[in-house]
């Protein structure tokens, strides 16, 4: 049975950091349209700090590794994204516990716990035009694919696809949370920056987390 190791998770984190760096200016432009224009810079500062924190000193257990990612993001990102992404990884780490490896079902359950943490921290619901609109459908798609007996790689691909669709679905939405909400109707017509970076997180997972089964 395939298992997800700390190395797989580390590859995921590195790929996410690479995608954030690559999309830094695009995220900032999206945020300038409906927020305060610092999402790209804040996320890039955070993922850069994460790379520095895990470089050569990455914890050996999956749970400890993602917890370190979470605490680093909380300490460096600021704004709303810091607590939200930080909470996601901290809850993920708590759910993975101390085990040396995790099964795909364990990781799917941990992703669910992470998303629930984000929902609780941000008090956002589906349809509020936030990162929740990308994360929730992604986790659901992952769970459903595993329940239907599909492979771990297929489940991750389904999650990434659902996150991208969820990101696209935020475009016509009117924001009800965060600084974009003060724009009211004027927030419609732009994808949400948080949902966009969350889709990058799932895209990174699809390319890396099933590493052990390749």
């Amino acid at each position, binding site marked *: 049975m395939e298992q997800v190791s700390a190395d797989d998770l580390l590859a995921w984190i590195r790929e996410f950091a690479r995608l954030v760096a690559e999309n830094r200016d695009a995220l900032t432009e999206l945020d300038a349209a409906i927020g305060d224009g610092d999402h790209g810079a804040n996320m890039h500062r955070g993922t850069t700090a994460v790379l520095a924190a895990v470089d050569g000193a990455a914890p050996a257990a999956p749970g400890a590794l993602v917890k370190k990612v979470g605490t680093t993001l909380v300490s460096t*990102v*600021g704004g709303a994204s810091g*607590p939200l992404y930080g909470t996601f990884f901290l809850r993920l780490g708590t759910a993975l516990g101390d085990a040396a490896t995790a099964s795909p079902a364990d990781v799917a359950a941990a992703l669910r716990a992470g998303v629930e943490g984000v929902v609780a921290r941000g008090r956002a619901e589906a349809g509020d035009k936030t990162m929740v609109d990308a994360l929730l459908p992604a986790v659901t798609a992952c769970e459903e694919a595993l329940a239907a007996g599909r492979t771990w790689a297929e489940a991750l691909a389904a999650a990434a696809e659902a996150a991208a669709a969820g990101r696209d679905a935020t475009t016509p939405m*009117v924001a009800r*949370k*965060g*600084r974009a*909400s003060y*724009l009211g109707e004027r927030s419609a017509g732009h994808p949400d920056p948080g949902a966009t970076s969350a889709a990058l997180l799932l895209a990174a997972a699809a390319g890396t987390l099933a590493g052990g089964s390749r």
Partner: protein
Amino acid sequence: MKKLINDPADVVPEALAGIEAAHPDLRVDHANKVVYRADAPRSGKVGLVSGGGSGHEPMHGGFVGLGMLDAACAGEVFTSPVPDQVLAATRLVDGGAGVLHVVKNYTGDVMNFEMAAELAEAETGARVVSVVTDDDVAVQDSTWTAGRRGVGVTVLLEKIAGAAAEQGRSLDEVADVARRVNAGGRSMGLALTSCTVPAVGHPTFELGEGEMELGVGIHGEPGRERVPLAPARDIAAMLVEPVLSDLPFDRGDRVLCFLNGLGGTPLIELYVLYNEVHRILTGSGLDVARSLVGSYMTSLDMAGTSVTLLRVDDELLSLWDAPVRTPALRWGV
């Protein structure tokens, strides 16, 4: 961009170093960007911690001192401080009687302070209570937004709750006073120009020579509407009327009137406007028991103003009048 700075990247740490050099009563934790009272922690006294994005000076670092805040956390310009900073500040001022966090209602600020409070309680056992300010009446549809923004009332709350803490009241009592201030205060702001964030280098938004932004936020967020430039007497009415009708304030109410400058408006203009505001308030049958006029909660170099009215009673007035010794507010000592 013309600014009295060295490097845009160093504005926040260099300003903190300046505060420390100018005010021997204060200390700065440079690693955590926290300004705190040199005599902290005070045993048995409730600690007051606030903070937020930089660019609103003198808020919050200029309100640290006897009778007001014990510590203030400085975030990047217009960006909330992170939980580590708030946790460090909470540890610095916890004298065993608990710590009150004063938080302005912005999504990032609320979440970062919330995480810090959880960490403080888990790691140090300190009891933390948070009070969130949300007095900006420019945000009308608070159900479908992140809620009303915390603006001018924050300054009044920090003074009044700070006095209550200085008297040795318990954490719950200080928090009650703070909540009463937020519940009884309302504000409305107006911009004549945009501000320029040092790291950005150009104005946040464009405002024509003949235009004003009514209901603007303190980070240059859009307001209720863009209106033609008007004389001070008309501006006073545009600001005061939505405030009066919101609480609502009634004839005979005693109020504290806080006329705030947003950073780029000279005091002489604030007094021209205060004259008009005072006339409207007394004409509406309000008793203006106290006033505060000056630039205390700014938006960098934005020209503009905000009006805050706070309904007061004998207790709140006596706390307002109590001694305070901070860089920005100083009386009775």
